[in-house]
């Protein structure tokens, strides 16, 4: 009885060894003969689109967050310091009157700011993609084209119209453009910001409650500072995207002073 058990055990070990050899051999074969499968370990090399996306994504998200917190600009010029620089989108230096809208084309301004900030990274990523494929034995042709960033409802689409062709033997991969879609509600928040700015430019001092009662998923907060300065913080309650901007509107002088221009 004991002898039978010992034989069974030896048999199991043999099976495990055989299975192990088969697995290792299969891995070696796959690694040697199927470079495409091999590169699934590094997804970027098997798919140029994914390569560009993973290469650009961090910088893109970082830039979107930066412009969202700074009133739509990467480097605000006319700003208030409120936990960082926040651009004035509506500003006045006279007393008593509502502000003047400084950036009526806010959507396009933000698109342009994001694009300018990421374009060097995008170029570097395409260079790196080219190098990566070249090292794997591909002939690579990349023709640079127009880059574009567009804010759309619930998303931001970054399009790089770079044509790319990867050739290795008979294998040819061609790409007309590369597109990155980022889920974000900046489009909606910018539309609300424009509405608040219009209110400020027409009547002064917008009412956050009105907006929150109209849009259940929107939170509007304000931080008031002296001389009619306010920072608006718009937050989407669902995905917590934030857009901040500043206004300086309807400044009332302190005391009995009647000078009309704030120096």
């Amino acid at each position: 009885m004991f002898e039978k058990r010992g034989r069974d055990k030896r048999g199991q070990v043999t099976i495990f060894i055989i299975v192990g050899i088969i697995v290792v051999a299969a891995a070696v074969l796959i690694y040697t003969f199927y470079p495409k499968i091999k590169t699934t370990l590094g997804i970027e090399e098997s798919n140029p689109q994914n390569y560009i996306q993973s290469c650009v994504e961090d910088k893109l998200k970082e830039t979107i967050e930066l412009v969202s917190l700074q009133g739509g600009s990467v480097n605000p010029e006319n700003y208030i310091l409120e936990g960082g620089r926040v651009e004035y989108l509506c500003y006045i230096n006279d007393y008593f009157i509502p502000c003047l809208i400084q950036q009526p084309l806010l959507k396009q301004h933000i698109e342009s700011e994001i694009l300018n900030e990421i374009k060097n990274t995008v170029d570097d990523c395409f260079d790196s993609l080219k190098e990566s494929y070249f090292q794997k034995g591909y002939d690579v042709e990349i023709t640079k084209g127009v880059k574009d960033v567009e804010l759309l409802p619930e998303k931001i689409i970054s399009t790089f119209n770079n044509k790319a062709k990867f050739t290795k033997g008979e294998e040819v991969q061609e790409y007309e453009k590369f597109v990155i879609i980022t889920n974000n509600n900046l489009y909606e928040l910018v539309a609300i910001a424009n509405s608040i700015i219009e209110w400020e430019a027409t009547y002064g001092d917008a009412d956050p409650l009105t907006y929150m009662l109209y849009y259940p998923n929107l939170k509007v907060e304000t931080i008031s500072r002296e001389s009619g300065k306010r920072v608006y913080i718009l937050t989407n309650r669902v995905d917590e995207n934030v857009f901040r901007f500043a206004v300086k509107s309807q400044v009332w002088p302190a005391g009995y002073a009647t000078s009309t221009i704030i120096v």
Partner: protein
Amino acid sequence: MKKILLIFFLGILLVGIVNAGYCCEKTIGSNPALCMNVEPEEMCDVSAKDVTGKNYLKAQTSCELTSFCRIGTCINLETGECLPSTEPACSGEGGIWNEKTKNEISQCKLGCCFIGNSANFMTQATCSVTSKNTGLKTDFDPTITDAITCAESANPTEEGACTYVENYVKTCKFTSRENCQEMEKDSSYSEVDFDSNLLCTAESLETNCIPTRNTECYGGKVYFIDSERNRANIYDSSKINDKNYWTYPAGIMGVESCEIGSDGNKDSAKCGNCDYSLGSFCSDKGNTPFGLIGDYYCKNLDCVDYRGVYSGGVENDAKGNLIADATHYPRHGESWCAWDGIPSSPGSSSYVLSCVNGEVGLPKSCDPIREKVCNEVKKEDSKEKVYYEANCKANQWRSCTAQTNKTDCENIELRDCEWIEYRKYYFNATEMLLKNDNKKITGMCVPKYGSGFVREGNPNLITSDSCLQANSQCVVTTEKNIFGSVTDEENGYCKEDEFVLNMMKICNSLGDCGNENNVIGKPGTVRNVIEIIEEEGGQRIAVPWDW
């Protein structure tokens, strides 16, 4: 009086125009901005623009009078938005500037845009852009001129049971007729049919969709869903086994949803007919009510857990503020006023607090120097429930001291003042002193909320007359009798504490004047508010401290 006010405000505007030294297309300095009136001329940027290479312009007049900085309308061709703007600000890509106002431009006029099953109040241009972005057909009605009528005009897209066969299985999708027709074109589906009078769970359809006890949120309300996750009728615990309720959509064959009621079914375990305007919204979090079927309910959006300052409270905190408790708490959408510290104390400002979605958010400060103050109105809704509405309004204090009678002083439509009386003292504008020698004027009109001093280091903004008006001299005449003891002949009250306290109260009411505790309760540094000068011959002159 109205004429005087009109002249006052016209005066302000005229002074603004006359005093505006230069109009700069762009200013330089720490806050470079477009189209600002400045003094001096050196604040204008005259460098070349990045795009055109032309220099920025300037003119010795008000911007409104220039050709390059007057306000028109910027039409954003990408979004369809029309915003009041100057031409330089509208010079970017996709912007067209028009010298007319928004209301004078046809494409900027507001109307009702019907998109899918919703209706939104927007410009015709925005409506067209939305159509492009969403791929949905839109219809614009310029005859609807307000947002409420627009919202009420929404014509929900007809939805119903779209049955089809896929992989030899007859199934169903609750969707619009349009979507169902699209499915008909897809070869992977066969026997596609649409019935707007039935739900997918209707037995007559013979699909694989069956009723469940599951729910989901849609449009802020709680809906039953079937085994294929199709939306059925609004959640109603009493109708979970009602065959009709799982056969016909509400409004068909006598099927009705449970009522919204007066409270929007807050925290109800029975009905999922929530109403955001009444303070309830579909939610899957929070304290799920006992007996609820499914995972969603109408969450109460009132601020039931809030225990801070609230005008509708009945109990006071240590500072004397009314506070919310378990039965007196703010409702969703309610707003009220609060002050940090003692109202009108130096450094204090008023706030608007509001309750939205069950939380009292960041307080909105009206103005750190109280040029705007919180204004609260107590109202009653249709159910006679009291609620509060607050907003920041301009603090109309400037004309207070010029009023000589109680009626004019406390006219809340014109100013924010209060009338106080003390021994017939009154403001003497000519001498800039408090006096009590006029028998006709019996009191003083002082600001209800005195303005604060600006703390940004611009001394020119505070003129001395802000506080000087409350200065007063009181001459106490004394007489020494034959035994050598001194007796007061006149104004002896000026030596009493009550006089000092009253004078200080008047002084404090004018703004950050006199000696008073600041917003954090710290007292002023000046202790002697009375200067007593004793002259030979027994005369005493008492002068309150001048800031």
